[in-house]
């Protein structure tokens, strides 16, 4: 029908070179949840990495802190066209968590409290590209933003940065997670606008 609602904002273009194509700079931090927000107590929280040999590496909350956190300032890009620039994060580098993990598999299924899943190539989690984040903007992550801990993979669309993360399973092939089974791109590189299948 072709009606244009002139005053309706939608996506505004921007010339900021830090913005990938089709993205709009926002200052707030929109929440996107596919189900009820799980309330995960730090006392019963744990994170596991499971390999093809059924070996499970496990950290509870205290053990995670002992691995050592670092501060990261990074931009995040949601596939729904918003980007948030220069966010201050604190978290444990995934490199450290994978230090003792022996695997020949190249892919990872990330699993969250509440049932959410997302898939990633292992190489996108290593070499200083990903963190298990526990704080954002100087505050502990709130449950609505994925607290107590969420994955942070800022070079990919933000649905890959799973909230309420509880574990990772090594996979021989790049099997799709929740959104990836439902029309979203298997990898999700914002600079290549890998939004949909």
């Amino acid at each position: 029908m072709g009606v244009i609602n002139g005053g309706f904002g939608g996506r505004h273009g921007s010339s900021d070179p830090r913005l990938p194509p089709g993205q709009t700079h926002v200052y707030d931090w929109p929440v996107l949840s596919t189900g009820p927000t799980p309330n995960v107590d730090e006392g019963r929280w744990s994170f596991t990495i499971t390999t093809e040999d059924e070996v499970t590496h496990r950290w509870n909350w205290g053990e995670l802190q002992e691995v050592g956190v670092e501060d990261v300032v990074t931009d995040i890009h949601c596939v729904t066209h918003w980007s948030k620039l220069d966010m201050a994060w604190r978290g444990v580098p995934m490199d450290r968590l994978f230090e003792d993990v022996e695997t020949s598999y190249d892919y990872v299924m990330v699993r969250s409290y509440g049932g959410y899943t997302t898939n990633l190539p292992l190489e996108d989690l290593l070499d200083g590209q990903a963190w298990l984040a526990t704080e954002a903007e100087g505050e502990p992550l709130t449950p609505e933003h994925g607290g107590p801990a969420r994955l942070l993979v800022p070079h990919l669309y933000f649905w890959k940065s799973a909230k309420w993360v509880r574990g990772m399973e090594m996979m021989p092939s790049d099997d799709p997670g929740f959104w990836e089974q439902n029309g979203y791109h298997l990898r999700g590189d914002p600079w290549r606008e890998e939004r949909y299948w």
Partner: protein
Amino acid sequence: MTHVDGNALAGAFATTLGIEITVTVGRCRSCGSSFNLACAHVFITAMGAVMRCGHCQAVLGVIVRGFRETLVNLSGLDYIRVPHL
């Protein structure tokens, strides 16, 4: 963020499948309960709509509107019963 219910998906289902979701009965694959999909819990997000069972919270279906196509996944339902209107 809180859920709404299946009434909110009437437009999306009418457009994509041509069915009236608010009088359609579905059976949850996870817990086996049958109910009018108007009563399903629906999480509307900017990425897509997620329909969950009001009894067991299992995902019943997902609707994602992409650039060129809309994806409708109803794999969490054993079947749907669509009345003749």
